[in-house]
């Protein structure tokens, strides 16, 4: 077993980073290809309740893993000496002129895209899905609300699939760092 704190920190940062990535990618796959189809096996009213419960819980996992990914990435880079406490804070290895730097910055940009998509789902699409009808709503109002919910559900599905592709591409970029980066 390692005896020095330095090595332990190296392991802990890598572990947290790997677990967060696994939860993000594996969670998206399980939601899309396992829980989604399973939802179709029960009556629609119950499926809607199940959909809301699973999505609410999954969003916690998404935000938790996105936060953990960036925090652990920062500490890993700092631990490897790419980020310092002195101006300009970034070492030359992270410059855009280097393959390693370009790959890291592309990963960061894609992480930002995942966050934006997560925010759209959490603060715009999910409330639309969960919206309740008020007493006295007209038939046209009910239909419009159903239409809006179906649209929101479609967009959530599209964004989740796009996120999955982006996350796997980030994993590809991350894997390439061992060999100096891909871009």
């Amino acid at each position: 077993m390692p005896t020095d704190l330095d090595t332990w920190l190296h392991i802990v940062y890598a572990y947290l980073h790997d677990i967060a990535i696994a939860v993000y990618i594996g969670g998206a796959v399980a939601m899309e290809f396992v829980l989604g189809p399973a939802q179709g096996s029960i009556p629609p009213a119950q499926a809607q309740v199940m959909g809301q419960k699973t999505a609410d819980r999954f969003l916690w996992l998404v935000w938790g893993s996105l936060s953990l990914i960036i925090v652990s990435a920062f500490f890993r880079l700092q631990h490897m000496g790419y980020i310092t406490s002195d101006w300009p804070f970034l070492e030359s290895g992270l410059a855009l002129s280097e393959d390693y730097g370009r790959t890291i910055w592309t990963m960061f940009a894609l992480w930002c895209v995942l966050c934006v998509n997560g925010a759209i789902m959490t603060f715009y699409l999910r409330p639309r899905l969960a919206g309740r009808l008020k007493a006295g709503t007209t038939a046209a109002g009910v239909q419009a609300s159903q239409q809006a919910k179906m649209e929101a559900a479609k967009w959530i599905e599209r964004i989740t699939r796009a996120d999955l592709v982006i996350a796997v591409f980030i994993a590809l970029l991350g894997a390439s760092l061992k060999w100096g980066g891909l871009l």
Partner: protein
Amino acid sequence: METLLATLHVAGWAIYAGGAVTMEWVLRYAQRTMPPSQTAVVCKHAGSRYRWFALAALVVTGVTGLLLLLTLNDGDLAGRFSSPELSLHDPYGRTVVLLGVAWLILLAVLSSMAFWLHPAQARRSKPEMSKEEIQAERERVGRAIKRMEWALRTELVVSLLAVGLGASLHAGGLF
């Protein structure tokens, strides 16, 4: 080629470990709010899909892990943190062996779930059965459900430990 193998390896264990966390943290939570009859239907459908995804992910992880191991050379290892060696005298080698053992445990647990516990859970009593036979069948299904819960928790714990072992390879291994 090595980058592609490493990506497949990462995607494999991410789908496996992340899927296990999601099934435990998301599906179990949702189940608590559902009527028992529908819980059984959802479990049956989710379980039958999940086992194939998990098995495929585990096989991909194992195969790509082995191929990555075969492509390792001394020069590559020398450039890494703490300059590890692929030998049982070095923590790196021992950790790789432990990862192999963890993979075999996961394969055994998952195979038992896919080919034994899941079918046993899905068995239903038939109208021509006697009361004793129906009771015995229910007890068998009950035992299968309990074993499945144990298997799922074991799978989750071992997969999270395996990710820890894998992460420790960045720092030259753990044991």
